[in-house]
């Protein structure tokens, strides 16, 4: 296991230590970059501000999957909003495909824990929402939707309404809708946390395969440590608020396209254990118990 410090501004060094990428030395294209991003919100109740993010910098290269983990309220979702152009950082800049993010742009698409399917649209129509808004021709968007639904084994449900589908199927439709706009970068905010554990593993594999085959770049926010380890090339650990990146961990394991196969690798446990330590999971209770004994 390799845990290295925060070196996001030195992509050349990162690529040198990435075992799977060393085989084909190619120019590193940075798809998504946060540069010294700080985010402050007005505190509820009026006075003062609340700093959600402090001086966050990192970059995600073309085709890479990077996970962000951290305690609740550390500003992970805020980073996603900044990347998708929905909110502007108080300080610092975000770049997608080398262009400064100044508002929503067609290179990024996001997916949340909620499927956000429109109940009055059929599955196909839901998948077409993004391409429809972006003004693609009807024939083209229908073809794209049908192709994606076929890929996710949803073709026979194309004329169903969302309420007729299971939670896992609804998340698949949401993923298809996200992919339909053919974004370079996917921002995923706990996309599978609302489905049951077994469905989640299947969905994770589908996502991993899709990302690999389509060569998409993704930033994945998750609370599920093993999800972070099995799906990603790198994991970034964030601190308590004000959120900042405290560690970058390169997951140098094979099978990024197959998290189920990766789960069989015992090294996954080492990574998860390390992440638990970094997040101080269980630390509070240990301290409390110790205090109780000494009293």
């Amino acid at each position: 296991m390799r845990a290295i410090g925060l070196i996001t501004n030195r992509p050349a060094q990162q690529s040198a230590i990435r075992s799977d990428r060393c085989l084909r030395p190619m120019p590193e294209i940075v798809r998504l970059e946060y540069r010294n991003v700080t985010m402050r919100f007005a505190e509820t109740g009026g006075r003062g501000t609340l700093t959600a993010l402090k001086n966050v910098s990192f970059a995600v290269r073309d085709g890479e999957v990077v996970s962000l983990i951290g305690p609740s309220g550390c500003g992970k979702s805020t980073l996603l909003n900044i990347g998708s152009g929905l909110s502007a950082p108080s300080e610092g800049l975000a770049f997608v495909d080398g262009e400064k993010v100044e508002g929503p742009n067609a290179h990024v698409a996001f997916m949340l824990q909620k499927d956000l399917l429109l109940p009055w649209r059929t599955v196909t129509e839901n998948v077409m929402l993004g391409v429809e808004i972006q003004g693609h021709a009807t024939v083209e968007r229908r073809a794209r939707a049908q192709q994606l639904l076929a890929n996710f084994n949803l073709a026979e449900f194309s004329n169903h309404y969302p309420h007729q589908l299971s939670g896992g199927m609804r998340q698949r439709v949401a993923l298809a809708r996200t992919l339909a706009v053919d974004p370079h970068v996917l921002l995923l905010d706990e996309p599978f946390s609302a489905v049951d554990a077994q469905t989640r593993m299947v969905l994770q594999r589908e996502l991993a395969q899709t990302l690999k085959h389509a060569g998409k770049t993704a930033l994945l926010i998750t609370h599920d440590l093993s999800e972070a380890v099995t799906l990603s090339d790198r994991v970034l650990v964030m601190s308590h608020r004000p959120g900042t990146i405290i560690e970058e961990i390169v997951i140098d394991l094979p099978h990024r396209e197959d998290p189920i196969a990766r789960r069989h690798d015992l090294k996954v446990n080492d990574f998860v254990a390390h992440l638990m330590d970094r997040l101080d999971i269980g630390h509070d209770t240990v301290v409390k118990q110790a205090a109780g004994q000494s009293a």
Partner: protein
Amino acid sequence: MSDARNTQIRNGTLASVALLIIFLAAWQWGPGLLNIPSFVVPPLSMVVTEFGHAWQYDHLMLHTGVTVGEVLAGFIIGSLLGALMGYLLGMSPTAEFALSPYILALQIAPKVAFAPLFILWMGFTVYPKILVAILIVFFPVMVNVLTSVRNVDPDLINLARAFKATRAQIFWKIEFPSSMPPMFAGLRIGSTLAVVGVVVGELVGGNKGLGYLLSLGEGQADTPMVFVSIVMLTLVGGIAYLGVILTERQVLHYLPARADRGL
């Protein structure tokens, strides 16, 4: 499961029909048995005879037609204005903030109390009746649309925004369709209230409509005619309500188990 459901529907229908027969029988023979004079509660047969009489000599169909026209006009105009106002206020919190005290005041004021005023302004025409109906239908529709626009999941709006949707696209693809179920709830209420508004207007002044027939019957102590008017008004309201329900089923067909919910 479906068998149990079918049995439930069949038994329910049978019970409904049985209740209707009992009610009609009680209406026919109850007053005689209880020695209630026919000028207080006329038996069913007398009301049916009066119905034929009114049809022939009192232009019952004309009066019904006038009332239906007023109800329709008031309902359609009131709903459109209510929906429009709901969307405008829903999208502009500033406008809502500025206008809400006045809207609240108008909503609290009993709309039927405006009927005499409108008749003073517009005379014994159909317009004051339509205006009362418009006012009365306006509020439930507006409030429901306003609330629904406010309650659209902000993440849905963000999803559309992330796809670079324009303001108009957000409205037509997200906000407008989301507002349909609450809007129909408002329209259901509005459809029955429209009849109330029109009848009050007709009672206050004029010489056409079922409300006029009602007051005419009252003036002549013609209880059967009053009953005929009430039955016809109930029919008009019922058909208006049914019209809304049928439209709602067409529009909201995507909602789960809509058909089983009944009226």
